[in-house]
């Protein structure tokens, strides 16, 4: 057969064979295969995207945690500070209260002492008065005989009493 003259039989069989192959492969091989490839590519792409977003979420979560921790620390510090302040205040208050009470007690004691002193003084005065009366009585009995002496004595007494 010739080199550059196409044979009719070959063309005929090739058209049948190649087109047959083409249609069978398109229907049963390439369509399912290309679809599967595309599906796989999209699934890989989606997986990569999901991984990326998961990583971002993780980072966000970490940042959130860090923030939360920071806030918690601040709050703890605040609470500690407040507690310290409160305790200091309480101690101070207690001290104040105590000193107030003590002062009050001292005051009260002083008042009692004063009252007692007054009472004692009154008692002493009464006793003195009684003693004086008794002395006076005895003196009077002794000196009543002399009128002049009596008068002088009374005067002196009166003078003394006034001075007192």
């Amino acid at each position, binding site marked *: 057969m*010739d080199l550059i003259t196409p044979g009719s039989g070959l063309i005929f*069989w090739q058209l049948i*064979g190649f087109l047959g192959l*083409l249609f069978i492969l398109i229907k049963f*091989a*390439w*369509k*399912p295969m290309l679809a599967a490839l595309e599906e796989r590519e999209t699934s890989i792409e989606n997986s990569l995207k999901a991984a990326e977003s998961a990583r971002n979420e993780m980072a966000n979560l970490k940042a959130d945690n860090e923030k939360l921790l920071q806030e918690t620390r601040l709050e703890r510090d605040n609470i500690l500070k407040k507690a310290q302040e409160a305790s200091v205040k309480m101690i101070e208050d207690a001290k104040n209260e105590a000193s107030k009470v003590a002062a009050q007690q001292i005051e009260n004691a002083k008042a009692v002492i004063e009252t007692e002193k007054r009472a004692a003084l009154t008692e002493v005065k009464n006793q003195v008065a009684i003693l004086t009366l008794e002395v006076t009585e005895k003196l009077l009995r002794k000196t009543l005989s002399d009128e002049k002496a009596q008068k002088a004595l009374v005067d002196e007494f009166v003078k003394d009493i006034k001075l007192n």
Partner: protein
Amino acid sequence: MTRKLLALSLLLSAFLLGFSSSTFAAESEEDKTSFIMHHVVDSHEWHFATFGHTHVTLPLPVIVYSGDRGLEFFKSSDFQNHETHKFGKEFAHEGYFIDDHDHLGRVDGASFTELSITKNVVMMFIVIFIVGYVSLSAASHYKKNGAVAPKGAAALIEPIVIFVRDEIAHKSIGPKYKKYVPYLITLFLFIWVGNLLGLMPGAANMTGNIAVTMTLAVLTFIITNVSGNKDYWKHVFATPGVPIPMLLIIVPVEIIGLFTKPFALMVRLFVAITAGHIVILGFIALAFIFESYAIGLVSTVMVTFINIIELLVATIQAYVFTLFTAMYIGGAVAEHAHDDHH
């Protein structure tokens, strides 16, 4: 590397035996090289080897359609001398004969159409079977397992599919590439497997046959022009930016251009593959011409070397045919948003 090449060459030289005895027996130089053309062109029988007087051949069906006699079936051995296995006008059978150039003829000279299953047709069916079988088993992997990592035949076919889709179709055709991917993959596999199997000893030069490349080029031509959009045809018949008198020259050139593109595809593949086969067989023929074992050894080393290059050519030519097909389709479906830049 050299040692491996030599070892491989010696091994391959065993195939020379297939040609040797009949060729050594030939007298003239022309007879010693005639097996080259005999291998390169199509044939009505598949001749594998000749050992002395034993011809290892596969007789093939000869199918003829003629207006007056209808469809007729023979087999190629009907037209042969049973002793010498040679075709010739003198061995006519039922009004037909195959001459010594392997041409089918009719004794009474009336017209007929030949639809024989020749050597290349058988070769083509083998290629179609292999491509079909491997591709279908690859596809069944996805049907069974869904969109998972490829295995087996799928692992072989998938890189090719992805290469054709992304590197050839997508890059050359543009956004509308998806529709053409199946044709391009089939085209690539058909040519590639055909080229590779053609390199096997005793195989037929199927992809180096002009009828085969012509049919593929015609399919590409049809697909390209059926896909052609308004811009494509406008470019052919009213090339934008060209003055009207110039159109008288440009339009015929453009119209010729429509046909030269597939013609170039046809010739490129045919020449590349046939030339490769002729070079390989030419080196083998040297041994017979010089009738020397030393030359035989040297030529086998060369044949091995060329064979390795041919493996490369087989892939490159399949790639180039597919790529150019994609580019022609790409040119036909491209949207020109601007016409003033041409």
